[in-house]
């Protein structure tokens, strides 16, 4: 640790040896090479924006999980595990697995059968242009902001960990992403997400392995945590959720079950265009159903490389980490727990692998957002509203140019985040404003044929407005209201004034989704529904279900979905 403090005084956490640099450079060369190789295959719109709809269930499933497994997520959730303990694993288990299974078994048949290219595309077919336009504009803004935030976050991490210049990190990463995504489209993005997935696993897996060896196993780790932090419970998932005060997160179990599992995770995993696009690239309906189910098994294993390092940090690090916005000289923030653990166990070679895994995660996050932006702009805004009938090649060119422009805008966002650090918090909040209401709109549209076009639009708008309102009230930023009143609003909407940030997010999602559903139902009651003839393939009751008599049980998505849920239940019991 003395060496680490010395490096920090010199402006870096670790020093890369020549072998580490070789590992990083080879990664950049490989992804660029793959991009140029795939360019020849990305000729049509379907190739460029949907990878030709040729991905196998395994590739689509890995890309599906990997699109969500960016480095911002890795660093952030390892930091959350250090801050809140194993409760953070809820976001990988009950806050993901049921939603992924639901997407695969219930919603993918609609998305796939209607041949849509995106979630806004489904909304256009179901509710018309107004609703899809609202959704597309918000998606486009969110994805490009997230790309910039990823870029800036990576540059900051590289500066803190390696001492690299911010501008160097931003430009090298953005140019690389721009080249390989503009060249190969979604093919490139997916190939690199699969590479990233393996890199992250093999780069980070040594931390929990060596950490558990050092602590003498799980029980040894728990004993050390209890010694270092007496009186605090970091290692129970459900046993301390009976009251807000009993756990480090200030969370009640209703927030986890209703806010996280039933609304926020459902909203994200079933309607977020970035992840759904990966499944839409599957080669057939069976692969499209199976991909999220395959992904669910890998998602369940991710706490091993994200949550466990955070817990091990509580056990073995000689210093206590502090909240990220309270770091003083000589201190480390929660989000630095993963690089600190990397530096603790990994020497030359392994360090390069770990750093490359982080870089790969950031770049894949940028690439995913940029490719999603290009698709949403081209197919959901440009084609329906600006130029309706153009040759397919025109839209492919638009996609390539849009990729370059998207990266350029992301660089601008990255520099904006540099000057206004709170932008990063607001971008995360912005994301949350739209996802929960969107889930309500999509689910009602798929399950209830009575929902009218107007109801879809007004429900989505009402849910979004309510989400923004709740956020401003609980943050004490609502215009003309005393900021001191935020405690009262938190107590009202999050059921306790002790509810922390993540808990507030859960209840914000829950209430905004409820608002969306209520308004949608009310408007439906006073408006005309669409005729059944226009809704075939878009609504459950009017869609022919694919039969699987000739498919063995072991090849059915439903079977593996049930297995996944059983494993999930088993994990909840073990870590109760």
């Amino acid at each position, binding site marked *: 640790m003395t060496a680490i403090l010395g490096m920090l005084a010199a402006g870096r956490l670790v020093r890369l040896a020549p072998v580490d640099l070789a590992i990083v450079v080879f990664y950049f060369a*490989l992804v660029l090479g793959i991009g140029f190789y795939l360019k020849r295959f990305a000729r049509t719109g379907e*190739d460029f924006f949907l990878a030709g709809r040729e991905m196998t269930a395994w590739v689509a499933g890995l890309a599906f999980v990997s699109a969500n497994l960016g480095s911002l997520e890795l660093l952030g959730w390892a930091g959350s595990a250090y801050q809140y303990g194993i409760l953070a694993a809820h976001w990988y288990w009950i806050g993901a697995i049921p939603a992924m299974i639901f997407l695969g078994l219930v919603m993918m048949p609609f998305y796939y059968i209607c041949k849509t290219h995106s979630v806004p595309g489904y909304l256009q077919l179901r509710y018309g242009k107004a609703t899809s336009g609202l959704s597309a504009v918000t998606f486009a803004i969110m994805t490009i902001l997230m790309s910039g935030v990823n870029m800036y976050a990576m540059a900051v991490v590289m500066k803190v960990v390696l001492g690299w210049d911010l501008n160097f990190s931003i430009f090298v990463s953005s140019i690389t992403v721009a080249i390989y995504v503009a060249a190969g489209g979604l093919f490139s993005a997916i190939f690199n997400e699969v590479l990233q997935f393996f890199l992250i696993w093999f780069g980070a897996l040594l931390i929990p392995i060596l950490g558990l060896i050092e602590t003498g196993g799980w029980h040894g780790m728990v004993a050390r945590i209890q010694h270092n932090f007496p009186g605090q419970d970091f290692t129970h998932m459900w046993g301390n959720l009976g009251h807000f005060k009993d756990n480090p997160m200030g969370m009640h179990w209703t927030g986890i079950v209703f806010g996280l599992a039933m609304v926020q995770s459902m909203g994200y995993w079933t309607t977020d265009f970035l992840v759904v696009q990966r499944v839409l690239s599957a080669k057939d309906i069976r692969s499209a159903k199976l991909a999220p189910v395959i992904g669910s098994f890998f998602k369940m294993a991710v706490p091993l490389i994200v949550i466990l390092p955070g817990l091990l940090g509580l056990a073995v690090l000689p210093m206590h980490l502090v909240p990220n916005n309270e770091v003083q000289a000589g201190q480390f923030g929660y989000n630095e727990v993963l690089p600190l653990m990397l530096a603790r166990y990994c020497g030359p*070679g392994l360090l390069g692998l770990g750093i490359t895994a982080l870089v790969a995660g950031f770049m894949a996050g940028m690439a995913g957002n940029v490719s999603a932006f290009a698709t949403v702009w081209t197919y959901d805004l440009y084609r329906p509203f600006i130029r309706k009938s153009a040759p397919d090649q025109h839209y492919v060119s638009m996609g390539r140019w849009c990729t370059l422009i998207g990266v350029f805008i992301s660089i601008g966002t990255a520099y904006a985040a540099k000057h206004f650090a709170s932008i990063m918090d607001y971008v995360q909040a912005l994301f949350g404003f739209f996802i929960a209401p969107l889930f309500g709109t999509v689910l009602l549209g798929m399950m209830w044929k009575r929902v009218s076009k107007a109801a879809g639009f007004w429900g989505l708008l009402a849910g979004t407005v309510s989400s923004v309102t709740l956020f401003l009230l609980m943050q004490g930023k609502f215009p003309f209201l005393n900021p001191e009143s935020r405690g009262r609003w938190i107590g009202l909407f999050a059921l306790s004034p002790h509810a922390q940030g993540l808990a507030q997010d859960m209840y914000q999602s829950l209430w905004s989704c409820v608002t969306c559903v209520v308004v949608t139902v009310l408007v439906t009651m006073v408006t005309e529904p669409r005729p059944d003839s226009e809704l075939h393939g878009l609504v459950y009751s009017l869609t022919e279900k694919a039969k699987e008599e000739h498919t063995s049980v072991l090849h059915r998505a439903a079977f593996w979905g049930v297995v996944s849920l059983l494993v999930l239940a088993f994990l909840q019991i073990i870590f109760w």
Partner: protein
Amino acid sequence: MSEKHHITPVWFFVGVLFLVYGVLILGSGLAEWPHPPNTVLSELHAPVWWGALLIILGGVYCTIFRPGRKEN
């Protein structure tokens, strides 16, 4: 993975990555064997066995998913 375009499977590229990294990390681990770095549990020589694992996996992936192999 791709019938229409005959694209080299992504698993081949995963294998290339593992193979190259495995050689680099194993080589580095052997070079530092007499004088391990100042990290916790360095006496376990993790780069050696982790690098070897990557080489084995990389070799398997590159062999099974090599370009031009006949798909069943």
